[in-house]
């Protein structure tokens, strides 16, 4: 059984359909990348998968022991958070906030481990304000890992990062997928990187233009027009 299944799903804002006909299935160990331009319905689909928005049509099902609250979510950059006084440790451990009132020993250990995975152990006591964009994203990824190790949902994880931090971020995600057996769903603009790291691709423009393995996507015409700089998109 799949971790996450979308069956003929459609979403609407105030009666206007923004995404429809979406069928997809995410199995354990998959790395699904959802690509498409701005306003193509990607973020809406994310909200739907997180259970923050109800589809107007179709069903979203969680399986294989995964419940709706067990998705590790890395949100898009929120400008309000830039000046938020919070230490790295406070943010990372808030990944457990939904579970219990106070941190227990096991949660502390897991949080430490996730910090280490993200190469952040030295920055534990630092304030979020003092970190670079790449470091901040890694803190949020460590928080997502505290919420779950089963399925990560990453919404534009490299947006606004410099090339070096972007590569590091991709490598870290790849490491989680390859070596820690974390299932990944990533929203991205970056078709090149998507094709390089992901196992499956969903190309969205309100409706799926392509859905299949990354291999097939690379052979498709769609991929070439999208990466070739021809701006029909």
């Amino acid at each position, binding site marked *: 059984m799949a971790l996450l299944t979308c069956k003929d799903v459609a979403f609407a804002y105030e009666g206007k359909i923004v995404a429809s006909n979406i069928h997809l299935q995410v199995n354990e160990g998959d790395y699904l990348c959802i690509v498409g331009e701005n306003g193509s319905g990607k973020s809406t689909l994310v909200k739907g998968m997180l259970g923050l928005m109800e589809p107007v049509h179709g069903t979203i099902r969680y399986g294989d022991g995964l419940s709706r609250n067990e998705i590790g979510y890395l949100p898009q950059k929120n400008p309000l958070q830039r000046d938020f006084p*919070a230490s790295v440790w*406070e943010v990372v451990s808030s990944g457990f906030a939904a579970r219990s009132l106070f941190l227990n020993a096991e949660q502390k250990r897991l949080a430490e481990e996730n910090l280490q995975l993200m190469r952040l152990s030295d920055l534990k006591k630092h304030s979020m304000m003092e970190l670079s964009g790449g470091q901040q994203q890694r803190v949020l990824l460590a928080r997502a890992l505290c919420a779950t190790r089963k399925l990560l949902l990453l919404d534009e994880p490299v947006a606004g990062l410099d090339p070096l931090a972007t590569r590091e971020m991709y490598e870290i995600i790849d490491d989680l997928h390859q070596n820690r057996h974390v299932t990944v769903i990533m929203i991205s603009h970056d078709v090149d990187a998507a094709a390089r790291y992901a196992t499956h691709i969903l190309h969205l423009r309100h409706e799926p233009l392509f859905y299949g393995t990354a291999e097939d996507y690379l052979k498709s015409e769609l991929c070439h027009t999208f990466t070739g700089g021809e701006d029909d998109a």
Partner: protein
Amino acid sequence: MLESLGQMFTYSFMVRALVVGLMVSLCSALLGVSLVLKRYSMIGDGLSHVGFGALAVASALGFAPMSVAVPVVVGSAFLLLRVSERSKIKGDAAIGMISTGALAVGVLVLSLSKGMTTDINNYLFGSILAMSESDVWLSVVLAAAVLTMYALFYRKLFAVTFDETFARATGLKAGFFNALLATLTAVTVVLGMRMMGAMLISSLILFPAITAMRVCKSFHGVILCASLISVVCFMLGLMSSYLYNTPSGASVVVANILAFVLFSGIEKVRGRKLAK
């Protein structure tokens, strides 16, 4: 001066003011941090005006002021929260309308029932003499409830304040905790209003949090620092109010302004050192 400060607490009204004031300062500093960070600070201001209206109507009709004001202000807190969540820009205007509207009704009711006397002045700008024995008990109980709730749900409130979308996605009932925050704020505002005044009580929510953020860069640090600033500024304000016969609410606010200036200075000096 020390002698007269010692004498200060031989008056029972001063002891009452001190007890209630310390409780309110602590609660408002804690809640203020979340409200400021969530961009909800105008709600505190709106609530105090609604509280003024409620107190005025209650006293005109001869009800116990607190027993009317607490439920009315808690109800308005839910309303304001709703309004500010729905839409950002209109929410601003709606809060302004509700708060000035409540203020106008309060003034009207007061002047019709008793005429514009010193009463209205006390409601608007606070009076140190306003605390009755029963007010003190109610304050202690409610403040203890606020502090307990805050301590119990500290981590959840942090999660909802820092990133509501993530909190919701992991199954945290963000709506419930927003409502909790609004309820606790409403209770605190009503408690502090008699002494600080309807016009000034929201400064207790704003100042300590913003002052603490000048120098503290972790949530925990900001919370502790804001509580300390709030309590110290209240003590200073109360003392000056007693020694120099200044209005208590305004004195506390001025102490908070001075603290803000001081902490901003520290931030500037630190920033320069870091830049070097």
